[in-house]
């Protein structure tokens, strides 16, 4: 055993562990999965702003599986008794952790800065546990976007972006007739679910979306409208090329870019891919919301875990304030390609698609048509979301009938509740 001990000690001295020192304005250790490219730069903005206030930032980036790896690490960290100060954690997941009693409130900051007045109410509710803010949102991503290649549409004689699914089907048939893949799609469960929820919004409007995908109402889940939604999804399966299975979303975006495909249905991060390739919105590619006159909301946020020590708590409060400051919301979202979570930030420097997103957001709040995304973990617990995704992806990849899909879905949801 001596050898073991010795080697452990040697390797301990070889490596510096954890924080070296603490700054005057507190310390934060941030666990996130924005680890590469533009996303990392966006987090870098937050770090710079925090360090500008003399804080110490310890970075714990863990990518993989759209945050699954980070969530794995988070559990290990909480169980071991050294949670990070702030974690990139979103949606109902915030409440799940809050119920375990492992979060810290930042309500003092939220009240003094009046977050309630500047956040969309749907989003504000997600950030709170028992009425107190435990998380702060950094952005809003819109999920119900449709991207198109204008040249491809022109070649097929499609003159405008569809505003109903019937129009979409008509346009898709035209594209198919001239040998262009109508819908660029990547066959990964979350992408299937993204298309599915946009279809539900277009078929049944925000009402059906909310009843079926948020409130999990059994009647709504088994309604004719849901069957119609699955019918439409089945149609769209026919508009996808044969090799879609497992394709990354950005490769699908590339198909639209090159004119191999007409449309892609994807959140506004797809815009980043177009812009990175030097394409101009409105000229080289078009953006329009998918049918339904709603707004499917996806938002990233940082959640504050129960840390001890004055420095850490101070750091937490400072970070919460920083995240919600208008300046940070602007610079961060310019880097990330989303729009600010605060609705009162000036959007002068943003592009046309982002402006459209912002306008629609305000309209949707007004008309009560703002819904949280099911596919992107904003609406329902992860356990139930898992059942949705399993079912939808299985439907998309088999010849299951819409009636059968609706029944299995309702049963699976009941089972997971």
């Amino acid at each position: 055993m001596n050898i073991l001990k010795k080697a452990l000690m040697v390797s301990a001295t070889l490596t510096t562990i954890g924080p070296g020192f603490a700054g005057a304005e507190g310390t934060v250790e941030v666990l996130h999965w924005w680890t590469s490219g533009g996303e990392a730069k966006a987090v870098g903005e937050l770090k710079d702003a925090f360090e500008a206030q003399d804080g110490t930032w310890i970075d714990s980036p863990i990518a993989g599986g759209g945050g699954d790896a980070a969530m794995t690490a988070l559990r290990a960290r909480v169980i071991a008794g050294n949670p990070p100060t702030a974690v990139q954690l979103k949606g109902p997941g915030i409440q799940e952790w809050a119920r375990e009693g492992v979060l810290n409130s930042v309500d003092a900051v939220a009240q003094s800065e009046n977050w309630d007045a500047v956040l969309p109410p749907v989003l504000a509710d997600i950030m709170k546990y028992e009425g107190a803010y435990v998380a702060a949102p950094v952005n809003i991503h819109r999920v119900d976007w449709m991207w198109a290649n204008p040249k491809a549409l022109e070649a097929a004689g499609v003159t405008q972006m569809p505003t109903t699914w019937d129009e979409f089907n008509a346009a898709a048939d035209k594209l198919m007739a001239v040998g262009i893949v109508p819908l660029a799609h990547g066959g990964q469960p979350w992408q299937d679910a993204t298309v599915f929820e946009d279809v539900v919004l277009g078929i049944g409007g925000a009402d059906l979306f909310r009843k079926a995908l948020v409130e999990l109402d059994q009647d709504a889940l088994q309604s004719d409208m849901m069957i119609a939604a699955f019918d439409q999804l089945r149609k769209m399966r026919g508009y996808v090329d044969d090799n879609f299975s497992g394709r990354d979303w950005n490769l699908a975006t590339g198909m639209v870019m090159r004119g191999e495909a007409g449309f892609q249905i994807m959140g506004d991060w797809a815009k980043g891919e177009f812009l990175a390739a030097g394409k101009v919105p409105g000229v080289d590619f078009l953006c329009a919301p998918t049918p339904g006159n709603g707004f499917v909301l996806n938002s990233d946020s940082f959640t504050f875990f129960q840390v001890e020590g004055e420095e850490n708590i101070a750091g937490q409060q400072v970070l919460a304030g920083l995240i919600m400051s208008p300046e940070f919301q602007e610079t961060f979202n310019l880097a990330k390609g989303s729009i600010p979570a605060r609705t009162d930030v000036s959007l002068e420097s943003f592009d046309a698609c982002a402006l459209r997103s912002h306008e629609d957001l305000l309209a949707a709040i007004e008309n009560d048509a703002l819904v949280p995304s099911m596919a992107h973990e904003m609406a329902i617990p992860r356990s139930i979301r898992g059942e949705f995704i399993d079912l939808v992806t299985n439907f998309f990849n088999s010849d299951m009938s819409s009636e059968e899909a609706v029944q299995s879905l309702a049963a699976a949801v009941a089972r997971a509740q």
Partner: protein
Amino acid sequence: MSRNNLGGIVQQKGTRHLMMRTLLFLTLGVFCLYYLIPLIVMIATSLKSLEEIRAGSLLSLPQDVTFDAWAKAWSSACVGVRCDGLKPFFWNSVAMVVPAVTISTILGALNGYALTKWRFPGADIIFALILFGAFIPFQVILLPMARTLGVLGLAGTIPGLVLVHVIYGLAFTTLFFRNFFIGVSSGIIQAAQIDGAGFFGIFFRIVLPMSLPAVVVTVIWQYTQICNDFLFGIAFTVGDSNPVTVALNNVVNTSTGVKEYNVDMAAAIIAALPTLAVYVIAGAYFVRGLSAGAVKG
């Protein structure tokens, strides 16, 4: 110690021999191709510009060769907010892998030796129980292990990670050595015992030197497993002490950002280089005749 006194068993002469040799190399060559094709694709991709990849030619050879992706992967790709590439994380991997491989290999050798050459009642059952540890899914031990490390005060440290790798490597190292030693003639050991050598004396002077092939496969296995481990790396280390695999994942994975395939490929090859070096160095000990010198007893 002459390595070529009996290189292969096949000893034939003439044209038939020539034909057989040609067939032999042909077969070996075909397999080389099977193993190499993905690497060729990776290298080709890493030498392309992102524009070229985006233009849709994923599997063709690069038109304009550029080493930018390699430079970026090594020293300027972003791994979280730090944009220094993979470079800073190599040291973490070394600090973890060297003690972990050394300790688990030595303990495995001792275990295997004690279980075969100094058989005591229940040795086989103990071996079977240790061996079953090879099948425990790492996902289920994550949380209790985290708690244990927390209690030991090793959470989030490299020594903690070393401990984890040693414990879960033990099943494999014991397996390799036990199965190697069981083939070693017990006559040598008995002769040494009569000469007055003890447990450790026999181990270090006789058994270990003749078990080089077993050491090689054990080190290759342990080194690869520990170096390529991701799950333990993310769960039991924090930020700056992450091993290079975690950093590689951070470079490669993006949820909603632009995917840089060329940098990904270069980074993956760079991250594999130390492991490849171990294969080459350790491979030199894949020789016949090591046991010959020791059988004299």
